[in-house]
């Protein structure tokens, strides 16, 4: 049974132009990602949890123990920096066993542990290398191994892949997820990349202006965003006023007018028809937009993203084939709609 492992309750920190408030609990063995635009307080959150900056008020609890006023070095919380910060005066082995030496492990124990960590990150035999001989991806994994050597209760990662190219990033995020699952360590992972957050996390925290907008599973934040900000930040979508509903809704059931001003749906939820005489193959309640015109079609490898114009509104949808023309019918199931109040 998973239990709350790391809890931040009512944590506040105030700067002249910025206020961060944090209420968050992370379960043992989970990997959660913090995502949001730059300046939203993601990195500050990590600094707070690690103790590198003090909180003005509130409590941070780790394993039921209040660590709010504990100095950094007593917290047992690891942090992998964006720029890795591998000590340049030490080689790979000495970087990794830095924490082991602080704990006065014997040479034999240190050797065994370092070798084990190097093999965990798939870098066996790298011990004697200098850090400036490593590639970006190798540095990143050594930084991870060094942080794990201290056997932290929680590992924080501050945009650990942002300095790497796309291909390497995709591979390394799988590596991090694998290592997290092998070791069972609780991880808090900061990223600005939506795809990264959705693929590797157990839970996602979407932040904005020092506040948590939504905390949920990747599916929840993507498909059922709590706010319009989360909806837009996590991916592309179409926003339409709910006043259109009576004219486009097809339903056999009783229709209840929503109280919110706008509705939102993702391009995946759009069903396309190029022949308007064909009926939609399903009988679920849905919205039907007739006579849409393809304004732009963008090939994304495997599918096309269509930008359609319908009565002055823009609607986004995907298509497996290349579609053009100006007599397209678009359908969206009511169950896929999200409603937001927009001022």
């Amino acid at each position: 049974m998973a239990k709350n492992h790391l809890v931040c309750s009512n944590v506040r920190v105030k700067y002249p132009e910025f206020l961060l408030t944090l209420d968050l609990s992370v379960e043992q063995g989970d990997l959660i990602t913090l995502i949001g635009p730059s300046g939203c307080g993601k990195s500050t959150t990590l600094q707070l949890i690690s103790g590198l900056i003090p909180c003005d008020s509130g409590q941070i609890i780790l394993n039921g123990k209040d660590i709010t006023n504990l100095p950094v070095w007593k917290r047992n919380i690891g942090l992998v920096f964006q720029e890795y910060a591998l000590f340049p005066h030490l080689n790979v082995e000495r970087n990794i066993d830095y924490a082991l030496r602080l704990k006065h492990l014997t040479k034999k124990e240190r050797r065994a542990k370092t070798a084990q960590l190097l093999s965990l990150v798939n870098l066996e035999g790298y011990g004697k290398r200098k850090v400036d001989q490593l590639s970006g991806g190798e540095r990143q994994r050594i930084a991870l191994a060094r942080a794990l050597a201290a056997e932290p209760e929680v590992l924080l990662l501050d945009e650990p892949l942002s300095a790497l190219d796309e291909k390497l990033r995709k591979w390394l995020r799988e590596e991090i997820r694998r290592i997290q699952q092998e070791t069972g360590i609780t991880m808090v992972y900061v990223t600005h990349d939506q795809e990264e957050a959705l693929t590797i996390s157990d839970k996602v925290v979407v932040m904005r202006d020092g506040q948590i907008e939504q905390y949920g599973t990747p599916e929840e934040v993507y498909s059922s965003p709590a706010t319009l900000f989360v909806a837009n930040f996590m991916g592309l979508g179409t926003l339409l006023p709910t006043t259109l509903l009576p004219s486009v809704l097809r339903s056999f059931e009783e229709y209840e007018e929503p109280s919110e001003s706008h509705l939102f749906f993702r391009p995946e939820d759009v069903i396309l028809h190029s022949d308007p005489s064909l009926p939609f193959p399903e009988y679920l309640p849905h919205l039907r937009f007739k006579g849409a015109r393809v304004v732009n079609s963008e090939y994304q490898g495997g599918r096309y993203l269509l930008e359609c114009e319908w009565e002055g509104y823009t609607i986004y949808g995907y298509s497996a084939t290349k579609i053009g023309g100006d007599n397209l019918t678009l359908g969206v199931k009511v169950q896929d709609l999200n409603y937001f109040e927009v001022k």
Partner: protein
Amino acid sequence: MKKEGAILNSSRFYRALSTPAALLLTLLFLAPLAIILSKAFIAEEGGVTLNRLKGLFSDPYTYRILGFTLMQALLSTLVSLLLALPGAYLLANYKFRGRGVVKALTTIPFILPSILVVLGFVIFYGSSGLINTLLGKMGVGPIRILYTFGAIIMAHAFYNFPIALGLIATYWENLSPLYTQVSATLGAKRGKSFRTITLPRLMPAILSASTLIFLFCFTSFVILLVLGGGPRFTTLEVEIYRRAKMSLDLGGAAALSLLSIAVALLFVALHLAFQRRMSHQEEAPKMVYKRAPAPLMKLFIFLYSLLALIFVLGPLLSIIYRSFRAPFTRSGELVFSLRWYRELFNNPLIIRSLITSLAIAAIVTVGSLLVATPLAARLRYRGKALELYAMLPMAVSSVIIGFGYYLISTLFKRGPSLSFLLVVLAHIVIASPFVLRTLLPEYRKIAFSYTEVSLTLGATVGQTFRKVELPLLRGAIATAGAFAFAISIGEFNATLILGDINTTTVPIVMYRLINSYNFAGACALGTILMLLCFFIFFIVETLKRRSNG
């Protein structure tokens, strides 16, 4: 959002480490100043008096020497700049053979004791020196260079043009070429681009170098004392020395010291302001390929490098050359000989001065590192106010520091150990700002993430200091220590005023040898001093290279 290094502010470690160092340095620096102040304002019969300052400011002689001091400093600065600017242009823009040699020249004055410059000038430009010998062979009569106003300016330029060259060339090199390229695409010719784009952007570096050089020349002492050779060329510092040690007018010397400090403070403030503008203009590093020079430019580069080399190395090499030349027979012809060295090593007084110099320099090296390293650790993340404070000693010349410690020594019964201690303390005060200025930029280069990651790995602030910061600073500490050693072993001004028979160091002995026209002996001792200075840097650089490679 987060202030860099905020975590360190909440740690008591650096405060505990740096506070004693700061207090000690303050005490060492303020004690001589305080006693100078009291001498200036307290009458012999007790009670506060303004008469000394009044007397000083109503005496036309004061204005004459102040005027001369400012004038010679200004002229020396201008000449140094004129010599340096073409070199800075070449170093910053061209790739040529011997570039490294010219760059290496710029480091010489920092480690060269001033008494060596004086001696080198006497040997190189004297009536039987290399220049006049060459002129004589061409049938041009010996020209008098020494003991003229020109000699002072030349010696100051010798000392300071490499400083300007180094500072301006480095800054120039790092200016992005983007703006001159834009200017060219907008139709500006090269000269126009230089005047409207490059020169204004270089200005902070030029002004910063100028104020620094002005400050050095304003407080220059031994060059005026020996090469000036007379009351006509008396500056504030020479006059302070004269009153303190010859006419024993301590009150007058104290009042003059205050005047000197006040003027120097002004230039320190200017220098710091220009320096700040320099750091504001720092640009992202880029890859710029330096041009290969065209034939005409090649000739110019060759001539400039050659003249610069002769100008800087001529006096130094003549010291070494002369130290190995002695008359073969009584009548005259000079041949290779080790006679002067034999004489030196048979003279117990000179052996003693070597031991004294080495002992003082060793203690000063350790002492100033112990004071400056903790200060640098704290200044790394602390505000500017403290840093400004650490720069204040620049406004107080070594003559004045020596004078202050001399006044302190009059309060006690003087013994050999007290004299030794006071000289060591004075040297630490003089060396520490240089050590701090060497360490601080290197300390600031250590990314805070190294410190922070160490803390998250379970190391305390103290452990992080020992295991991460100090090892990363190793090279800078070695260089700073070498500077302290070179400054101390070459220190002349304070030692002359403060010292007595127990603290006769190598530069003092050289001064006496020069004054008694024993130039050959001075050259032999000077060669040893020069080798010591270069040797310590050679060791440091070798060690650094080995630990890096």
